[in-house]
């Protein structure tokens, strides 16, 4: 079993950043169908800053410190809608991880993901079904909460949670957006997968791979 200490959380953040950047063009394309085509760019800019901050962390940082550095990086660099959402999410994650030397339990991550999703909802005021990243995140949170009760390895739990998020992201296709610029298109935005939900799935996959120390 891996020991998910602050250093590994930091490494995971760097991996998340890499994955997001690899998906930049795809995320922009999705956003371009109904929005302004910049989602992949905003996420890349934010995660590049997160990555830089993670690399600057001391080796003995706590998980909470690592997550808070991500929040701070987002705060200054990104703006847009997604900036405050991820800033709040990472800050809430840091809060949820506070006092912990490591995040080795599925329950740790369940509470972190829950805190992140809640924070995003608090800032963005979106409801389930509004066709936002929450439509990927909330199902993922429910999923990992179930796994925390059931038990199993952390690696497997994070991976299947990321998969759950991706499936949910794909399901946003049928939703009519209620928030952000896509909402102005109404039914015209139906049929397109939500960009933010898709990037959220990429982020969760990044954490899963980072924690299980796998490469891709």
């Amino acid at each position, binding site marked *: 079993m891996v020991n998910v200490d602050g250093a590994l959380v930091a490494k995971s953040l760097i991996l998340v950043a890499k994955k997001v950047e690899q998906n*930049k*063009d795809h995320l*922009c*394309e999705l956003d*371009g*169908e*109904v*929005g*302004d*085509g*910049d989602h*992949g*760019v*905003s996420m*890349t*800019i934010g995660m*590049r800053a997160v990555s830089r901050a993670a690399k600057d962390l001391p080796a003995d940082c706590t998980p909470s410190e690592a997550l808070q550095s991500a929040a701070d990086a987002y*705060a*200054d*660099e*990104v*703006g*847009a*809608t*997604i*900036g*405050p959402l991820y800033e709040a999410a990472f800050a809430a994650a840091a809060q949820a991880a506070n006092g912990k030397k490591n995040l080795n339990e599925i329950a740790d991550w369940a509470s972190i993901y829950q805190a992140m999703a809640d924070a995003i909802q608090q*800032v*963005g005021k979106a409801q389930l079904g509004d066709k936002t990243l929450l439509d990927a995140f909330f199902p993922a949170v429910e999923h990992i909460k179930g796994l925390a009760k059931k038990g199993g390895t952390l690696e497997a739990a994070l991976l299947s949670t990321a998969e759950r998020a991706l499936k949910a992201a794909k399901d946003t296709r049928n939703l009519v957006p209620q*928030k*952000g*610029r896509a*909402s*102005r*298109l109404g039914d*015209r935005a139906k049929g397109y997968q939500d960009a933010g939900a898709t990037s959220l799935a990429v982020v969760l996959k990044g954490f899963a791979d980072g924690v299980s120390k796998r490469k891709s």
Partner: protein
Amino acid sequence: MKKLINDPFDVVEEMVEGFLAANDQIIKRVGKRSIARANSPIAGKVGIVVGGGSGHLPAFAGYVGKGMADGAAFGNIFASPPAKPVIEATLAVDSGAGVMYTYGNYQGDCINFDKAQDKCREMGIKVETVVLNDDVLSAPKAQAHKRRGIGGLFLVWHVAGAKAEQLASLDEVVAVTAKANANTRTVGVGLTSCTVPANGAPTFFLPDNEIEIGLGIHGEPGMKRVKVRPIDSIIDELMDAILADLDYKGTDVALLVNGLGGTPAEELYVVYRRVKQICEANKIKIKFKHVGNQVTALEMQGTSVSLLRLDTEMHDLIKNTTVDTCMYKKV
């Protein structure tokens, strides 16, 4: 993608650097992504802070200077600035008379400016906000609060800046800005999309025989896609939408025929010709007219038409104020 840039991720940084150097008589830098009038804070004057995503020049930073805005925050391309540069601009322009934020109605801007407002109020600065929502076609009238802000920003800020220049109180500046916004309507049409540099591909694709009615200022799709047809008939449709939304008959107006960035000025004058004919038919008197790129979307081709229904106060404010901002001058 072909653009006059280096690394696409450096565009905003390098653009800001060039913008500052080119306008150093008018503005100073007050943060990595924030500027203020060189002589800020101006004693007794309400500070007007504008901002939003980059890619809309002259909006927003281009309007910092005498007669319009006091400070601005730069976001990334088409992305609202974070709270930080807004706060920096606020601190730089606050003379004690208070600060007004005014920007287009986009979720990202609202979230980030509100955050800045909260923080600045905590610091004891009087901050008020007027969010602008002139784009008729972006939501039905019953949901006007959801409409986004586009070309009409320029007309509203003309009024707001003039009022603040007279050293009016924060309440007065807010009131006249809200009034100008309530009397401003815009409709737009896009011929092409545009390319976010770090994206590298156009945001969407419009076939060579289709245009988007109701297009915004981010290259995002508009309200409906129609076949290309003569511009007069398109302008007729746009003006119908404006005139159906607010009663302009027999009133005085300030008018903007706005270019979206990639459209030649020649075409904007062809548009103005038709707009003027329609105004005349509706006994609308054009007191101030502007034809040019004021609120753009990178190299997007298209236009928007904005009408601000004037009362005596707004008319005289515009008339009597010299404007000398980075990118817009009125002698």
